[in-house]
């Protein structure tokens, strides 16, 4: 409003009238010239008062009669530099004077041409803030009515000097046309258009009332470039807006009493977000719809009924390198019932598809801190595969995740303080890039509670159907563990990114939220159900392969740090059948165990690579032991219980060398490293092959000797897992005691390939019992009792005591072997004495005592029906005793054909001069000499050589009177002795050699008168006389061999010379013997003659 001063006229009727006229004229003239100046001055001063800015106006035209007002060249300047704030080229308005006089500012037409407003944003605020903060002038407000208001060519510029790089935005071509704007009516309406940052915008106002203000507006923007907002992102933002377009429609109702009520819809298109320093977009949102409803602002209180966003996105994983882009096909987010200041919680509902598959939904009530927010995060079927690179390990982890997490805490920046819920992952896979090494059907963590950053706990972790293949390389490394080592830093995608130094842009891969070192992990119970575990070991030879199925594990009290023991129950089915169960407690720091291990019918063959002997061992084991490891590595352990192996099969390659139906040890008590004791060790149907190879070695000994080159790396995986494997204690130094050893129905096959033909002998039905066997030198001797069959027919029995295996050798054993078929030893007889037995049975009683190195053995031998045949020329018996073995045996046989001798062997085993073989031969020689000396003394004498060998046996001849063939009394006596000798030694044969002397010749010549007497006839008659004499004594004359008389007479008495000759080898002994028994002497004689 502009106040115009009134003029007061002068006094006096005429003069004064004239003067008044003149003065009026002068005043009018003066007013005509001064009025605009005054008005301009008033306007300028008023505007400067209102805006606190310098105002300049080129001209002001006011026609009080017409009410027309025109202002040209209006300019407002601000600041010390007098910068232009606003300018109007021209303002034309027509005011109704009469209405104005009534206090109603009524403008029929107002036109604002070329207005320009320059808004500057400084760090301390906008340059227009003072205009809004400053209250308006007081006084009575006039009613205002504008019938028509027009703005043409308006411009609003925004200079943003708060940015590092000041930018200016312009809204140009502003055209406004409004009608019926009034404080007295509410039917005003206006239409405004502009081009803002290049995008057309329109605003339509209806139902406008100026005071109290009321309007309904519809604002539309099309294709607004969102890149303008790039500069308004925080400088340390992980992403910035690269580009995008926005179109929106805002419907707004502004009412002085009701406040602002607005709804809006909008669409974002082609929005691209990039990480600082990168060119490739981090996220692309092709199309996103926004919907805002029920926004109310009244009395400084803001409430939003619902803000909803739907769309899709394409997100790139920064760790996946180029091309690692994920499609978020569905993104829907809404927030409802939001108020500010907060009076009711906002309801948040965000649902999004997850790259690779699955959905994530976040719902709940949202309050600003310090009030608690109640949020629920549901994840459904989220494929972890595309996110594998986010896990900072080399392993590629896949799976389908489901989660139900709740937050009921004041939300602080970063990780919520307390999160409750459950997480489950199905179809878990862990691969090394080439193949899957581990996995599980499902793992579920229930009743999860996270109190960041101090504690993470869960009531139960259930792992269903886990599977793993753990491999150990030839170098002893475990690649599976290496997979979980931290992955190396990712290569920076560009050189500039490294300098950007922005978190999440190109920084090396680090755990996203590493748990602080002080964080406590606690899982009440870990359940593993129906797992499978495969162990492949290239570090041992042959390659180790262990497989377990049906692995069930229950661990109570798991967590970290592990300063307490864990309750563990585990069960598994090893490959090949059976069951393994472990229950008890295991400590980790320090490592300790108190476990009960139960194994039922488990195959032991797969553990072959870890057996330190070359033998292949198979069988099924049963084990029930309590294992206590006090602490690691104290090298102490106790094992108590029982163990058994069934169907034991120890092989040398393909050959079985040891078998047993079952070997069981009960009352097992191992107190390592002090002692090992077994209550009862029972072997059922054990069998062993004891073989001497052609090379002279014992393969069984080689098989059961430790492998050459066995190293620590070849230890069983159980030891790597912490099982007891005390080091530094030599197993041989630990005393082992077996209280009772029982062998039932045992057997053995003795094979000697070194002799020819090879020797083989079976021992069967061995029953043995040993009580008190021990390696403790202080232990009492063990009681031994053994019996069994040898060679199918003979019976072996041993009984006695055996001293401690760890002390001096002490043996006191008595034994019997009955009915052993001697031909089974032909391999050795041929080799040792060049004879073989065609028949014969051995019965012997042995008493053997060894005390330290003192040997005192006595063997009583009875050999029955022994028939020998020479099998070679190297007769060791002849060489060592002096007589061929056949002759010796024949002489040693009694009348029944048996040999009974006692062989005592004594000596000191430690004496270097002691030779067992020589001792045996010496004993045999002594025994043989004693055995034959008595019968030979009847008919002659034994002649010995200087080395005590038998040189020869001289038999006294049968003497005859000169020229006679009749037996003299002396001859008869000698003949009777010979017959008795032959009867006593049924296998001895004699050669009869008639000797005709010169005296016989002389006597025959004298008796016959012939100069050439028949000497052969005399010899024949003498032989006949001797044979008849022996025959009459009942001796088989087939044992007599007649030898032709010597052609040259000798100067001695006539006689029949007797010589022992080697028995004939039995060509086929069975039949003649049987015939002899059946048919009597005739057949015997015929057989002998034949």
């Amino acid at each position: 409003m502009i106040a115009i001063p009134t003029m007061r006229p002068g006094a006096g009727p005429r003069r004064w009238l004239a003067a008044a006229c003149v003065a009026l004229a002068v005043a009018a003239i003066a007013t005509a010239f001064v009025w605009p100046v005054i008005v301009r001055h008033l306007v300028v001063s008023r505007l400067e008062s209102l805006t606190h800015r310098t105002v300049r106006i080129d001209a002001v035209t006011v026609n009080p009669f017409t009410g027309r007002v025109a202002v040209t060249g209006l300019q407002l300047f601000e600041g010390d530099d007098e910068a232009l704030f606003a300018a109007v080229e021209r303002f034309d308005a027509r005011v109704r004077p009469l209405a104005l006089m009534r206090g109603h500012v009524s403008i029929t037409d107002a036109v604002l041409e070329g207005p320009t407003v320059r808004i500057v944003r400084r760090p301390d605020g906008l340059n227009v803030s003072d205009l809004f903060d400053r209250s308006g002038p007081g006084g009575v407000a006039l009613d205002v009515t504008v019938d028509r208001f027009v703005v043409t060519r308006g411009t609003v510029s925004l200079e943003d000097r708060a940015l590092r790089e000041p930018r200016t935005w312009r809204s140009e071509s502003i055209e406004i046309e409004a009608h019926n704007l009034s404080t007295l009516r509410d039917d005003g309406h206006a239409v405004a258009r502009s081009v803002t940052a290049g995008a057309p915008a329109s605003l339509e106002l209806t139902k406008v009332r100026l005071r109290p203000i009321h309007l309904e507006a519809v604002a539309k923007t099309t294709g607004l470039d969102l890149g303008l907002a790039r500069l308004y992102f925080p400088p340390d933002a992980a992403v910035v807006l690269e580009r995008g377009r926005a179109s929106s429609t805002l419907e707004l109702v502004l009412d002085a009493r009701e406040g602002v009520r607005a709804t809006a819809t909008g669409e974002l298109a082609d929005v691209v977000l990039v990480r600082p320093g990168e060119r490739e977009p981090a996220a692309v949102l092709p199309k996103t719809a926004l919907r805002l409803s029920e926004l109310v602002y009244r009395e400084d209180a803001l409430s939003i009924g619902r803000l909803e966003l739907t769309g899709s996105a394409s997100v790139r994983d920064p760790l996946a390198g180029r091309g690692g882009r994920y499609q978020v096909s569905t993104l829907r987010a809404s927030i409802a019932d939001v108020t500010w200041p907060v009076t009711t919680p906002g309801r948040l509902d965000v649902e999004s598809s997850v790259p690779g598959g699955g959905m994530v939904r976040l719902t709940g009530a949202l309050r600003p801190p310090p009030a608690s927010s109640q949020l629920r995060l549901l994840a459904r079927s989220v494929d972890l595969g595309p996110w594998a690179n986010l896990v900072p390990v080399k392993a590629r982890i896949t799976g389908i995740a489901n989660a139900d997490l709740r937050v009921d805490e004041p939300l602080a920046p970063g990780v919520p303080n307390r999160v409750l819920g459950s997480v489950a992952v199905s179809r878990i896979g862990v691969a090394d890039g080439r193949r899957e090494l581990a996995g599980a059907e499902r793992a579920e963590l229930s009743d999860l509670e996270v109190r960041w950053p101090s504690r993470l706990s869960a009531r139960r972790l259930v792992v269903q159907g886990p599977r793993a293949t753990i491999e150990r390389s030839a170098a002893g490394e475990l690649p599976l563990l290496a997979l979980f080592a931290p992955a190396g830093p990712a290569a920076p995608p560009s050189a500039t990114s490294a300098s950007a130094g922005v978190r999440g842009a190109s920084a090396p891969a680090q755990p996203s939220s590493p748990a602080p070192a002080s964080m406590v992990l606690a899982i009440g119970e870990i359940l593993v159900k129906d797992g499978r575990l495969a162990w492949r070991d290239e570090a041992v030879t042959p390659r180790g392969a262990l497989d377990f199925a049906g692995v069930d594990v229950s661990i109570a009290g798991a967590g970290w740090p592990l300063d307490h023991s864990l309750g563990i129950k585990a069960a598994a089915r090893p490959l090949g059948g059976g069951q393994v169960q472990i229950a008890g407690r295991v400590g980790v720091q320090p490592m300790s165990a108190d476990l009960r291990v139960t194994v039922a019918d488990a195959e032991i063959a797969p553990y072959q690579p870890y057996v330190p002997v070359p033998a292949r061992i198979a069988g099924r084991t049963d084990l029930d032991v309590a294992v206590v490891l006090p602490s690691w590595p104290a090298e102490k352990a106790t094992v108590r219980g029982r163990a058994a192996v069934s169907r034991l099969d120890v092989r040398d390659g393909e050959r079985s060398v040891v078998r047993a139906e079952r070997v069981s040890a009960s009352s097992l008590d191992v107190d390592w490293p002090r002692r090992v004791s077994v209550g009862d060790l029972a072997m059922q149907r054990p069998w062993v092959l004891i073989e001497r190879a052609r090379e002279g070695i014992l393969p069984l000994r080689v098989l059961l000797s430790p492998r050459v080159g066995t190293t620590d790396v070849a230890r069983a995986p159980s030891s790597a897992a912490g099982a007891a494997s005390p080091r530094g204690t030599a197993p041989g130094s630990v005393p082992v005691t077996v209280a009772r050893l029982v062998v039932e129905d045992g057997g053995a096959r003795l094979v000697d390939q070194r002799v020819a033909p090879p020797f083989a002998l079976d021992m069967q039905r061995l029953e043995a019992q040993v009580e008190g066997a021990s390696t403790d030198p202080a232990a009492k001797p063990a009681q031994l009792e053994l019996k069994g069959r040898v060679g199918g027919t003979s019976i072996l029995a041993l009984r006695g005591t055996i001293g401690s295996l760890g002390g001096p050798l002490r043996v006191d054993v008595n034994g019997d072997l009955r009915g052993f078929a001697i031909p089974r030893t032909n391999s050795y007889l041929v080799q040792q004495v060049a004879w073989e037995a065609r028949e014969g049975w051995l019965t012997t009683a042995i008493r053997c005592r060894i005390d330290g190195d003192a040997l005192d053995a006595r063997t009583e031998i009875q050999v029955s029906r022994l028939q020998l045949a020479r099998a070679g020329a190297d007769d060791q018996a002849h060489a060592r005793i002096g007589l061929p073995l056949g002759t010796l045996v024949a002489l040693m046989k009694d009348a029944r054909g048996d040999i009974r001798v006692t062989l005592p062997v004594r000596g000191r085993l430690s004496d270097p001069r002691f030779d067992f073989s020589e001792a045996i031969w010496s004993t045999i020689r002594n025994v043989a000499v004693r055995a034959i000396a008595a019968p030979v003394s009847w008919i002659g004498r034994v002649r010995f050589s200087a080395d005590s060998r038998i040189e020869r046996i001289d038999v006294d001849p049968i003497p005859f009177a000169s020229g006679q063939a009749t037996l003299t009394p002396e001859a008869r006596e000698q003949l009777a002795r010979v017959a008795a000798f032959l009867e006593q030694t049924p296998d001895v044969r004699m050669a009869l050699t008639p000797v005709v002397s010169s005296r016989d010749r002389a006597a025959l010549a004298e008796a016959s008168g012939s100069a050439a007497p028949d000497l052969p006839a005399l010899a024949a008659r003498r032989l006949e006389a001797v044979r008849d004499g022996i025959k009459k004594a009942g001796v088989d004359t087939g044992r007599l061999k007649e030898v032709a008389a010597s052609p040259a007479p000798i100067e001695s008495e006539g006689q029949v010379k007797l010589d022992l000759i080697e028995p004939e080898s039995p060509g086929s002994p069975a039949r003649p013997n049987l015939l002899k028994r059946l048919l009597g002497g005739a057949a015997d004689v015929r057989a002998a003659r034949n």
Partner: protein
Amino acid sequence: MSAAAEHPPAARSRVTRAWRRLSALAVIVIVAVGSGCASRDPWQDARIESEVKARLVEEKSANLTRLGVESRQAVVRLTGTVSSEEQKALAERVAKSVGGVRRVVNALDVRPPPG
């Protein structure tokens, strides 16, 4: 004329005794010869058993160490269990290769190993 009339009792008794003796002698000869054949060369059977067992044990490529071996008149009977027909045939070949074996009765059972 009856036989009793033709032969006086003493003569008849002598004939009867002679027949009895001849019959007994024939039986004895038959049994003796038969049993002599049955038990001929038992030491050879022992040698054959021993050598066949040793040869079976010596076969490294098969598991023949526990087979039962019985020789009667040089006829070898193999008993026990082997894991394949090939091993059964191998055992028979090994037995036949031993000197003096006339025939091999292969009574081995074939039972493949489980699994």
